[in-house]
Structures are given as structure tokens and as C-alpha cells.
């Protein structure tokens, strides 16, 4: 179907250009043309975001562009996702809980990781920022999450991750734990017993998918 390819291209382009209106219009066009909404998401919106991720990794775009693209992505998803859910055909690779640790309110990175996880078909429960250990544990248990993602931007608050880890290990058996944020690195993630670390949102999503595949 020629129209389908055209619609996918429009969705992808709308995300890459950060144009919410075009994303909504293209999503509505997809619905009107009877395009499978799940495919419209994957081959249109998510493909655009994946391309932005590649540009980000090559330092050809930066956080402002990613954020604007994510707004367009969510605008398009607002049209298409309810249809996928209603169809009962929603596929998910896993469930993740994400949040910024106690004492920290820097959440741009966390929001980008959340978005990239969703783009990769992971259901994400976002606890927001300034999240204490108990809330992480309760939310992970309640949602039966496979993955727990912790973010900290400051050297002060990153210590929370280190402190939380023993309780996570005992109270959340089988849950994969990922960490990230400016002051962290792979070595600290390993030392503290995390299962994964992402230097940026794109990498984090890649690691998350890998962890879920090997779970």
C-alpha cells in the first residue's frame, strides 16, 4: 500500500522535526487509511525517534532536539496507542519502573530514557523525581516490573543508588537494575551491583532491551 509507506514517512519526519501537529495529523491519517496502528508506531514514530537517537550518539543533535522530537512522538502516540491497546495486540518487551533518586530533581535524562524505553516497546512506570527506596521497591513489586531504572545527576545523590542496592537485591529478586546519570560510570555500576549502565538515553535503551532478552 503506497499510502502506508507515505504515512510512515510522514510520522517519522514529524518526529524528527519535532512537529507535534504534523505527528497528530499523520497519525490520524494512518487511522483513516486503516493502517495497523502498531505498525504506524513502530515504522513511523519509533523509527523517527530511533533516527534521532542515532544522530544524538553522533553528536549531530542534542537534548533540545531530542526533547522536541519526544513531544511529537508522544503527540502521535496519543492518537495511535489507545487503538493498539483496544485491539488487544499491544506487544511489550517488558515492564520497567524508572525514577530519579531521593534528593535529586534533575529529570531530563530520566525522561529521555523513559521515552527511549517506550520507543523500544517497554512499558514504563515513571515515579518522577526525588524517589525514596521504599517507593521504588513498592512500585516494582506492584507493577511486577522486570527492570528497575535509577537516575542521579549529582555526586551527592548518586550515593542513594549505592545505599538502595542491598535492599533491592534482597527484596526484588530477579529484577534487573539499571543505573545512569552524569556522575556515574560503568565501573561504579559494576561495583554497586547494577545489572546495567547507560551513558546516555540511547545506550540505556539498548542495554535495557538486552537485559530483558536475557532475563
Amino acid at each position, binding site marked *: 500500500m503506497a499510502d502506508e509507506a507515505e504515512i510512515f514517512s510522514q510520522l517519522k519526519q514529524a518526529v524528527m522535526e*519535532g512537529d507535534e501537529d504534523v505527528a497528530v495529523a499523520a497519525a490520524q491519517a494512518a487511522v483513516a487509511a486503516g493502517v495497523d496502528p502498531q505498525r504506524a508506531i513502530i515504522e513511523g514514530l519509533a523509527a523517527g525517534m530511533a533516527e534521532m537517537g542515532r544522530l544524538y550518539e553522533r*553528536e549531530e*543533535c*542534542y*537534548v*533540545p*532536539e531530542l*526533547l*522536541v522530537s519526544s*513531544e511529537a512522538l508522544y503527540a502521535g502516540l496519543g492518537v495511535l496507542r489507545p487503538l493498539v491497546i483496544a485491539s488487544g495486540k499491544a506487544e511489550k518487551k517488558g515492564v520497567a519502573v524508572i525514577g530519579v*533518586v*531521593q*534528593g*535529586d*530533581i*534533575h*529529570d*531530563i535524562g530520566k*525522561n529521555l530514557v523513559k521515552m527511549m524505553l517506550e520507543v523500544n516497546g517497554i512499558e514504563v512506570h515513571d515515579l518522577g523525581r*526525588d524517589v525514596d527506596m521504599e517507593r521504588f521497591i513498592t512500585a516494582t513489586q506492584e507493577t511486577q516490573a522486570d527492570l528497575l531504572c535509577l537516575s542521579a545527576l*549529582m*555526586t*551527592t*545523590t*548518586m*550515593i*542513594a543508588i549505592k545505599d538502595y542496592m542491598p535492599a533491592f537485591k534482597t527484596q526484588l529478586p530477579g529484577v534487573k537494575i539499571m543505573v545512569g546519570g*552524569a*556522575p*556515574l*560510570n560503568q565501573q*561504579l555500576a559494576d*561495583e554497586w551491583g547494577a545489572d546495567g549502565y547507560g551513558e546516555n538515553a540511547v545506550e540505556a535503551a539498548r542495554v535495557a532491551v538486552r537485559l530483558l532478552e536475557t532475563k
Partner: protein
Amino acid sequence: MWRETMTSGERMAALMRGERPDRVPVIPFLSGHAAVVCGQPIARISDDAEESFRCQLLCQEMYGHDGSPLYAYASAGGWEFGGEIEFPVKKYSGAVIVTRTPIQTEDDVYTLKVPEDVSKAGALPIALALARKQAEHGLPITLQIGAPLTWAGSVIGEERMMGWLIKKPELVHIVLDKVSQFLIKVAEHYVKEFGAERLLAFHGAATETNKLISPKQFETFSLPYLQRINQACLGLGVGSYFIHICGEQNKNLKFWQQVPMTKQTVISVGREVDLTTVMELFPEQIVAGNVDPTLIQEGRAEAVLAQCRECIEKAMYHKGGFVLMAGCDVPPHAPPVNVFQMVKAAREYGRY
């Protein structure tokens, strides 16, 4: 046995004159840590000028470092323009955070007011009280004059501002203009109260990192306002500057070169920026850096010492002078013995 032949004050004065002191000066970059080692809540560093000054001075005495007390924090701007902040009172909190930005909507940009009396705006009364203590003790008098985009982020909200850089750039420029007006007024106030000669104007440039914005965005949104503020300060006779180029800013460095500054300017960089690069780009200025704060927090003393040595050996003979410094604020609960490694390294490996 080698002994120091200068006091901290003499050492820093020699550095600022472009002379070689007895050893590499050390400004560890301590804020909350100074409160912790004095048994005080971290918040005292930012909410109480008297206690902040006392803790910082005692901490300097204990470590034997060369950084005199100052007042600054990274999220400045939000409170000054009418927002709300929270001092670091919660568990794991290490710095002031903006809990409600003055700008919530696009309309707020147009109604945002530059405070009439800067001396009463936000944290300025505390900063000025600490400055008076600096004056009493004959120390450099520090004033925070930016960086403007970081301030604008605290006024607008970081994430909102990131989106506006693309979609509503004119709104960001309006805020940057008002922030610049405010910061220049602050500089004028300090000059009037303390005189220009002893002032040390400080930029903390965090939002400018290339982890967030592109070099092109830096050129568009940061550089013109940095130039405007520094030009105004130079016009007021402020001769000394301290510019903390926080985090990954390698692609911004060529633009930082275009910011007006004197030789008496300390260019401080994070671990992400190589000291050699900074030395090449700023041959006349004092280069400072760049011990990894995460290493100071989590590493063993031996590893911290080794990294300090590496920094010293790389930069101690820089033409403009060198200060051993952490790449960013030392975590408040860093092991004191790790912080001390900076002074130890300067004494061992940084003798001139």
C-alpha cells in the same frame, strides 16, 4: 625537608600577579563538604552567611588549602526572580534546588521583572553578608555573575527551556536579557559597596554543557550574554574572574575564548575536558582542574593522589599559572582523607 614558604593568601596573590608561588595552589571546590567536616547541616553553607564563612574558613585551615570562602550555587536565578527554592535539608541533598520556577507559562516571560533592588533579591542578602565577611578578613570578594544560560534555566525550568531553544528561541532571549540586566546590576552593587579592586566575579556554567546543548546553541544563547556581562564588569573595573566550565564542554571552548576576560581569570574545567587543551586555548589565563569528584567521593586515597599528580604534572608549568582543583563541587560526604590528597599532592609534586 621541603616547607611551604607562603601563606595561602600570599600564594594566591602571587598566582594572580602571574608569578610562580612556592607550590601549586589548591582550591578543592568545597561547599557542602565544609559544613559536613564542621559537623553542621549542609544547608548552612547556603542559608547562613555567618556559619558558611566560619565553616569554609575552618575547613581551609584544616586541609591547608588555598580556596577562601565564597558564596555561590549552581541553581541560582530561580529565587532571585521570584521563584521558590529549597536548601539542601533532605537526605542525599547536596545543593540548593529550585522547587518552583518563576516562569511557568509563555506569558510569564513578558511579565518577568528584573528585581528593582538586587540586594534584596533571593539569595543576594546572604551572598552580600558573606561578602562583608570576606571584606572584613581581607579576602577576595566574590560575586556570582552567571553563567546566564544556567541562570535562565533556573528561571524558566531546564526542560522547558531546552524545548524553547528550538521552538520559542525569542522567549529564551527575553529571559537571558533580563537575567543579564540583573547580573550587571549585581556587579554594579558590589562595585559600589566594596570597590572593584578586590572583586572576583564568578561564572558557574552548568547548563552550557554539550551533554545538553550543541555548540551552536552555546554560540547563540550563551556567548552573547557572557560577552555582555563580562564587558560590563570590565567596564566597572572588575579585574579578576573565575569561570567554571562545568562538565563536557569541549565543543564550546572556542566560544569561551571569545568571552572578554583578563589575565587574572581562573578557567576551571571538569574531568571531561583535557587540561592540555585548555592550556593551549587560554595561554595567558590561570587554568584550574580537574580531579574527578566521583573519584574523590568513591575512590581510594591512593587513586586520588595519583590523579592529582597527573593533573599537576600536566599543568603546573602552564604560562598563565595552574590551580589544582576538583572538576566540580566535591561531594559533601567525600572522605576527608581523599580531599586532603589534593593538598598532599600539591606539596609533594607541585613544588616550584
